[in-house]
């Protein structure tokens, strides 16, 4: 089959590789119909995540059709399914508590060692995301082997179009959990750093969960425009002093909750971010947490800090004293996708959540290397890319043409 493979920093290719096979009784094989490129794939593209090996297949936002099942899978051939990016067994202590991304059995015994040494405990398994999370092949390919297929995959109605449900695999539940982690109360203002796909879903979710007001922060005009369409007030950090603006807009109190949808590769030319970038390039640090630092300083006393953004290791100059003196609560973590998929599917079907407004491009698997480059270099024009193995090479569909005008 054809598959999108990682070969090093800024080196993504399309290779012919063997088809996956059923290995364990609970496995299923999925023929991929849609597989999106995630913002967190850029951390792999930029070489920020340890444990990738040349030849690994990328892709963790996957959906498709069941074509083969092991004897203990509950899926049926022909089922249309969305695959959570988290591999979860369903039976361990963590899965029983619905903390699916912490699954204790899905990271194989051999690969679990490395993350146990780095993190203190082994991480749960995930598709297409380095050997620290199990070394599973991703779904930016024609076919995908899904372990524990009786627990993860969500069967969706045949007639629903892929674009409406594919994001149940990751970014929609991730945005939802980010907002849920804010413990929103009536009257609350929530500030969201980063208007990429997760940020946009966090904004929608925060409103649904009762936020009085959402303030979105970014520097790409089109992404800010999408946030505005959702009802958020927007701040372009090239135009304003973000902390001063947030304080003024909240009568000096500060936002009640802050969400960092940026993660380890903050943009911006602030002093702290330049220093973090230099350290990252010299392998002296792994994180560039500029957005998170700013969010913590902006958050009101006794407020909540929610971090869906991906971090991988030790951060420098983390404002721990500020967290303590202001009495902030921090919640973060990889998304417990399976906990949310059913509820969010219902909300999509009832028209309560819009999931397609952010998709800017469809492309074939063969065009993936180009798409990774666009996704990395042109974040104003490329707001979300969905790869369709059914498309021919060169058949790129532009769904949204963004005007270059200030939001």
């Amino acid at each position, binding site marked *: 089959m054809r*598959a999108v493979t990682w070969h090093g920093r800024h080196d993504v*290719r399309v290779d012919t*590789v063997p088809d996956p096979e059923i290995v364990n009784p*609970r496995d299923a094989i999925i023929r991929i119909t849609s597989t999106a490129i995630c913002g967190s794939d850029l951390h792999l593209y930029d070489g920020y995540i340890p444990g990738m090996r040349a030849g690994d297949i990328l892709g963790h936002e996957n959906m498709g059709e069941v074509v083969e099942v092991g004897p203990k899978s509950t899926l049926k051939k022909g089922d249309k399914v969305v695959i959570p990016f988290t591999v979860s067994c369903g039976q*361990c202590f963590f899965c029983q508590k619905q903390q699916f991304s912490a699954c204790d059995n899905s990271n194989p*015994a*051999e690969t679990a060692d490395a993350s146990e040494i780095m993190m203190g405990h082994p991480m749960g398994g995930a598709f297409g995301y380095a050997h620290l999370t199990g070394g599973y092949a991703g779904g930016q390919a024609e076919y995908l*082997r899904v372990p524990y297929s009786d627990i993860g995959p969500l069967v969706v109605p045949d007639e629903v179009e892929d674009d409406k449900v594919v994001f149940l695999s990751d970014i929609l539940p991730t945005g939802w959990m980010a907002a849920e982690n804010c413990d929103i109360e009536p009257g609350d203002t929530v500030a969201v750093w980063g208007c990429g796909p997760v940020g946009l879903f966090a904004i929608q979710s925060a409103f649904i969960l009762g936020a009085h007001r959402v303030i979105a922060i970014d520097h790409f005009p089109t992404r800010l425009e999408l946030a505005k369409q959702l009802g958020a007030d927007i701040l372009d950090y090239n135009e304003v002093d973000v902390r001063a603006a947030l304080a003024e807009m909240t009568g000096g109190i500060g936002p009640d909750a802050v969400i960092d949808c940026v993660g380890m590769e903050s943009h911006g030319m602030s002093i702290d971010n330049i220093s973090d970038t230099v350290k990252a390039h010299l392998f002296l640090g792994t994180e560039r947490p500029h957005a998170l630092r700013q969010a913590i300083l902006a958050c009101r006393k006794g407020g909540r800090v929610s971090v869906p953004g991906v971090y991988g290791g030790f951060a420098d100059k983390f404002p721990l004293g500020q967290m303590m003196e202001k009495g902030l609560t921090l919640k973060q973590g990889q998304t417990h996708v399976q906990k949310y998929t059913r509820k969010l599917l219902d909300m999509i079907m009832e028209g309560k959540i819009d999931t397609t407004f952010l998709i800017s491009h469809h492309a074939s698997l063969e065009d993936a290397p180009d798409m990774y480059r666009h996704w990395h270099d042109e974040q104003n024009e490329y707001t979300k890319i969905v790869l369709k193995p059914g498309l021919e090479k060169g058949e790129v569909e532009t769904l949204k043409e963004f005007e270059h005008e200030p939001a």
Partner: protein
Amino acid sequence: MQTTDDDEVISDAPPHVLRGDAAKQVQGDEDFVGRTVTVGRPRRELYDFWLQFERLPQFMDNLQSVEKLDDQRSRWRIKGPGGKDIELINRLVEDVPGEKLAWESEEGSDLDTSGLIEFTDAPPGRGTYVRFVMAYDPPGGAIGRGIAKLLQREPTIQARRDLRRFKELMETGEVTTNASPSARSSETPTEPRV
């Protein structure tokens, strides 16, 4: 060993996590390896599975076979460092149903070793704490252990991975594998990738 009151080990911890003088006091010159995992199944079920030593190769990666010789004794074939097989004749020396099994290698074995598996109730609703402890004399002494570690057959690493696989098998009914395709010609889609 004769000790004064000052020397007594006061920590409520199993012997294999002691260090420094405390370790020497309790372990002597033997090398101890130990690891505890929580398995979300009842104690008795786990004990029953383990009692059938012939089934251990299902989750113990380096154990090629276990052959029952009589009620007490069994022959274990283990992949050793450098492709050399190690053969042990193990004798069951303690059997407390639902709680504990202990064995020792008999004379004629390639290695002096003893092992212990203990099953205790985890807090309510959480299943069983399974503790595996092994004492052994590494082949080739410290150098042999260094080589084994490089080859990932070092007993500490082995014990950790074997217990993880035991937990997977007991909780999920299968041993987790990441077997899947890649663009590396050295791999197949049906074999695990490390």
